């Protein structure tokens, strides 16, 4: 499906390979994942994943469908708590704090680690109310100029301000799909998070809207650490600094499909010189 040339071309236009060169000192670790396994009831969806997510970088998760990318991503802000059957073992440290410590409050975690979903899911309210939602529940601001500033800044960062500044009180459902997704990004930014988790944020969008979001992510990188799940390998190659490739292990006895982290490295390494054969097969499109 994807030819390697396309990707090289994509990478040529974006000098991503220079991540290491730009900042020779290793950036701060945001998430330190060690031996993390996730279960849905008896079923093990992710097995023993270990990786480090760095500050002010974009980390991409790629891999075939069902390999547990979403599952792992949702551990990062404890969204898995909402699924009764989900169970997490191993360790997941956020700036050194174990996120699954019993003293940690999931709501507090989600206020610091924002999430953008695969399908744009604006609330059926005004554009302004959508952006104001997070700050309001977090008690950052209620109304008035403070909130207006937050709304404007968030929409500007999400590159949506110019398009909606005259209709902030219109219903958000009237926006186009791409605008809705940028609104969701603005909404996540408004809570002033530290990390943005994005689960295939462009999969429901057309190429032009996708390009806009990708550009946006480049800008956001300065302020936030971003983890993005994507099916689109060019996208991973274009936007990310590091890439984690996941795959599924099929247990021949039970026919259980467990997700495993195959390889994690700088994006350049993964796409040009992967050390694992499975990764190479996948990024060159030879994967079944």
């Amino acid at each position, binding site marked *: 499906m994807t030819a390697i040339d396309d990707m090289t071309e994509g990478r040529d236009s974006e000098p991503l390979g220079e991540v290491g060169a730009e900042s020779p000192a290793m950036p701060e670790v945001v998430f330190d994942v060690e031996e993390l396994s996730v279960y849905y009831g008896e079923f093990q969806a992710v097995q023993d994943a270990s990786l480090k997510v760095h500050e002010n970088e974009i980390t991409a998760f790629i891999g075939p469908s069902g390999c547990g990318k979403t599952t792992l991503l949702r551990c990062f802000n404890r969204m898995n708590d909402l699924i009764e059957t989900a169970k997490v073992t191993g360790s997941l440290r956020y700036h050194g704090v174990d996120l699954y410590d019993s003293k940690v409050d999931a709501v*507090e975690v*989600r206020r610091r680690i924002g999430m953008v979903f695969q399908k744009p899911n604006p609330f059926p309210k005004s554009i302004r109310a959508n952006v104001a939602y997070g700050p309001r529940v977090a008690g950052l601001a209620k109304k008035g100029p403070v909130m207006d500033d937050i709304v404007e800044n968030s929409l500007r960062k999400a590159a949506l301000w110019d398009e909606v500044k005259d209709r902030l009180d219109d219903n958000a459902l009237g926006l186009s799909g791409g605008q809705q997704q940028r609104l969701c990004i603005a909404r996540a930014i408004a809570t002033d998070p530290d990390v943005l988790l994005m689960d295939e944020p462009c999969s429901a969008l057309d190429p032009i809207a996708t390009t806009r979001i990708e550009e946006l992510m480049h800008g956001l990188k300065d302020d936030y650490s971003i983890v993005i799940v994507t099916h689109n390998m060019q996208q991973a190659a274009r936007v990310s600094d590091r890439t984690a490739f996941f795959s599924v292990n099929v247990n021949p006895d039970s026919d259980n499909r467990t997700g495993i982290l195959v390889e994690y490295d700088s994006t350049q390494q993964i796409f040009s010189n992967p050390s694992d054969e499975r990764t190479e097969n996948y990024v060159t499109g030879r994967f079944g």
Partner: protein
Amino acid sequence: MTLATIGTVARRGATGFERKRTDVAGGLFKALILSALVVSLLVLAVLLIDTVADAWSQLSTRAWDFLNGSLRSRSIDDKLGVKQGLYGSFWIGVFVALTAFPIGVGAAIYLEEYAAKSRLAALIELVIRNLAGVPSVVYGLLGLFLFVERSTVFGFVGLGWLADATGGRSVLSAGLTLAVLVLPIVIITAQEAVRSVPSGLKEGAYGLGATKSEMVWTQILPYAAPGILTGTLLAMSRAIGEAAPLILVGAITGGLTRNPELWDASGLREKFTALPIIIVEWVSERGRDPGFAEAAAAAIVVLLVLVLLLNMTAILLRNRFERKRG
């Protein structure tokens, strides 16, 4: 019986008899089931037309007086009317809205959002489903036991204070009894409404750091509001039409001295009646004074207008939102 006959005919048609006969059998079957529907609708039509026709003599000449009048011993009395029944039915509706609505919605949210899929929730749901099937007259016994008699539970939990608070055989007792009766309806419809909230909205709210109660308040309740309202309206209409529990908790038609204004809350803890009770009473009086049959029909028209208004509002509300949300 008839179905079986048609069945054999149809089967014969299917197994290779000439085409024409198959069509006859199929057509006959269709005609038969269509007639079932038509008969049902016809009964409804006859019921409505007959009642309105009977009620005509009262409603065409003195509708306003009828609405404002009180219980009388003769059907030709100028002051005959249903105001006292309207008073009772109105306040029953109010009590149902004030108690069954918040408790029912709270229960539905607990079952769907707080304890979803837990064993406790499954047990409570089983209880609610069975409560929904308990005959209304049994709820009347509960009302009698709780709110009218000065009962004691297990020999030491005295319930006399409940009877004191409600005034025994009163609108308050009746309203609370009917609120208990419709509670399962409110819960079940509210649960459906809560369940219909798209998970994207819930996740969006949680993802922005909303707590559970904030999510419920800002996403679930606004989105489920039409459905919840529909259920509550249906429940109120059911409560207003119920008579059996009222008889058990002691609604009367004789010995009512006052005819209070609708919003006059001073009569809530006193002897009371309600529209359905007046209808029953007047039907039984028609032997002595045939004019009461027409008075009863007129009272039925009043009751039907109230009940159908609530029902139709509910159905329209639901259909409108169903269509809007695809």
